C-alpha cells in the first residue's frame, strides 16, 4: 500500500541549524494496517507524516502509494488520496465557513471543482446522518460557523472530513494532543470506529504509549530520524508500557530522557 524507500530529509543543510530529521527511512505499510507511531520530541514523526503528505520535498528516496510513485507529487495532488488530521484543531477546518460547507469541500476531495453549486440537497441529508453518528449534536448545527466549535468538536469534524471520501491513507499527527483527556478519549474512539468500519490504512502519531499499544495492529518507534522498533500482531498486543520505555532507553542511552514519553 505505502512503501517508503531510503527517504532522508535534512532541514537547513549547510547552515549551523542543519538538522537531519529523517535518516534513511524504510517502511512498508500493508493494506489495512493501522500503525501507531511513538518517539520522543524531535524524533522525526511529524516530518515523516509531512514527507508522505508532500508538505516539504524529500531529499532522496522514493515514496510509493497505491503502487504509484508519489515522491515528486505536490501536496494537493497527494491529498486526492490522503486524508489528514493535524495536531492543531484550528488547522483542519475553515473557521469562517459553516460545518456543512466544510464537509461539502471535503466531499469533493479528488474531484474537479467546477461551477456546480458548492453543496447539494442530497449532501446535506448525507451530512446530517454522518454527523449524527458522531454523537456530538453537530447535526443540528450544520449552518453554524466552525469557528464557534470547541477544539474536540473541530477535531472530530476534521476526522470526518478526512475520511468522508475514503482515502487510500489516513495520517493522524497527535490529533488528540490538544484535547482534554475525556474529549481525547472520545475522538480516539471515533477514530477507531471509522478506521475499522472503512477498513482504512492509517498512521497515527501519539505520545500516549498505552494508546499506542491498545490501538491498531502495528507499532513503530522512531528515534533521531530512524525507525528503531517495529512490532505487530500478537507481539504488539502483549507489549507493556515498561517494555516501550526500556526500548527507548536502549536506543537513546538515556534514562527517561523525555518527560512526554513517560506519560501514558
Amino acid at each position, binding site marked *: 500500500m505505502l512503501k517508503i524507500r531510503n527517504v532522508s530529509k535534512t532541514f537547513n543543510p549547510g547552515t549551523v541549524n542543519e538538522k537531519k530529521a529523517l535518516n534513511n527511512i524504510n517502511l512498508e505499510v500493508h493494506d489495512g494496517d493501522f500503525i501507531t507511531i511513538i518517539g520522543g520530541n524531535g524524533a522525526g514523526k511529524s516530518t515523516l507524516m509531512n514527507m508522505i503528505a508532500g508538505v516539504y520535498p524529500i531529499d532522496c528516496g522514493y515514496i510509493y502509494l497505491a503502487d504509484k510513485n508519489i515522491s515528486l507529487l505536490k501536496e494537493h495532488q497527494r491529498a486526492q488520496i490522503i486524508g489528514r488530521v493535524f495536531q492543531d484543531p484550528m488547522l*483542519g477546518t475553515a473557521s*469562517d465557513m459553516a460545518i456543512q460547507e466544510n464537509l461539502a469541500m471535503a466531499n469533493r476531495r479528488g474531484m474537479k471543482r467546477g461551477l456546480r453549486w458548492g453543496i447539494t440537497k442530497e449532501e446535506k441529508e448525507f451530512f446530517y446522518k454522518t454527523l449524527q453518528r458522531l454523537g456530538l449534536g453537530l447535526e443540528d448545527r450544520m449552518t453554524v460557523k466552525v469557528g464557534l466549535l470547541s477544539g474536540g468538536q473541530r477535531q472530530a469534524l476534521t476526522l470526518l472530513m478526512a475520511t468522508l471520501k475514503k482515502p487510500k491513507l489516513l495520517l493522524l499527527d497527535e490529533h488528540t494532543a490538544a484535547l482534554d483527556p475525556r474529549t481525547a478519549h472520545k475522538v480516539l474512539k471515533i477514530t477507531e470506529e471509522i478506521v475499522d468500519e472503512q477498513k482504512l490504512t492509517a498512521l497515527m502519531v501519539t505520545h500516549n504509549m498505552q494508546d499506542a499499544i491498545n490501538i491498531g495492529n502495528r507499532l513503530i518507534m522512531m528515534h533521531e530520524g530512524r525507525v528503531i522498533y517495529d512490532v505487530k500482531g500478537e507481539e504488539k498486543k502483549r507489549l507493556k508500557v515498561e517494555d516501550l520505555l526500556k526500548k527507548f532507553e536502549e536506543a537513546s542511552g538515556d534514562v527517561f530522557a523525555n518527560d512526554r514519553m513517560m506519560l501514558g
Partner: protein
Amino acid sequence: MSILLAMQGALSQGVLWGLMALGVYITYRILDIADLTVDGSFATGGAVCAVCVVNGVDPILALLLATIAGAVAGFVTGFLHTKCEIPAILAGILTQIGLYSINLRIMGRSNTPLLKSDTLFKNISEMTGLSSTWTALIIGIIVSIVIVAILYWYFGTEIGSAIRATGNNEQMVRALGVNTSVTKILGLMIGNALISLSGALVTQSQGYADIKMGIGAIVIGLASIVIGEVIFGQKGNFAFRLTSIIVGSIIYRIIVAIVLQMGMNTDDLKLLTAILVAIALSVPVLISKRNQVAMYKKLTGKEE
C-alpha cells in the same frame, strides 16, 4: 443648489467606484491578500477602454476588453505571488509599477479624452434625455446588480467555495486536494477584473482616461469597505455584504463632497482618506483593548 448637484454626483461616482471597492473586497477580505495591483489595474481599465472607444470599438465591448485586461493584470500578480513565491504585497507593487508604463504605452500619452467618441453614457443620455449624472447612476446601479448577482453565484459554487476557504485556511484547502495557487490566482484575477471594469466605467462617464486616475484607489477601496462594514456590520449573507460595500463607497463620496463643499483643498483629499481608513481600522482594536482593561478593573476590584 450646488450641494444638491454635488450629492447627485457623489451618488453616481460612488456606485461606479463601488465596483472597484468590490474588487478590493475580494482580494483583501475573501482572499486575505493585501493586493496593491489596484492602482495600476484601475488605470489599465480606463486606458484600454479609452483607446478602444476612441478607435470606434463599441462602448460595451470596450468595457469587456478592459475587464479582461484587469484579469490579466491580476494573473500576473497571482503568478508572481504563488509560482515565484514573492510576498503578495511586493508582487502587487511590482505589477502596479509595471502597469504604469504599460498604461502609458496603451494610451500613447498620459491622457486620452473621449470628447468626440460615443460612450455608453452619452448614448443612453441621448436616448433617454436624462442628465449625465442620472445616466451614470442608472448604469452604475444596473451593472452593480448584475455584478453582485454574478459574484453571489460564483462564490457559492464549488470553485468559489474553494477560493473563500483559501483565504480562511490555506493549509486545510491543500489538504483537501485543492491547488491553492490556482484559487489565489483566480481570486486575484476576479478582483482586478472588477477593478478594471470600474476604471473603464469611470472613464466613460467622465469622458477621459488619465494615467494618474488610479493613484490611491486601493485606499478608496478600503475606505468603502470599512465604512460599509462599520455601518452594516460584517454579518448578513454574501449579497448583503457586497451591497453594503457599494453603499460604503457612496457614503465615502458623500463625505468627500461635503468636505469639498466646506472648502477643503482637493489636494488634501488623499490624506483625509488615508486618515479615515487608519482610524476605521484601528478603532475596533482600541475599543476592544479598552473594554479588556475595563473588564479587568471591574472583575478584579480595588487593589488590596
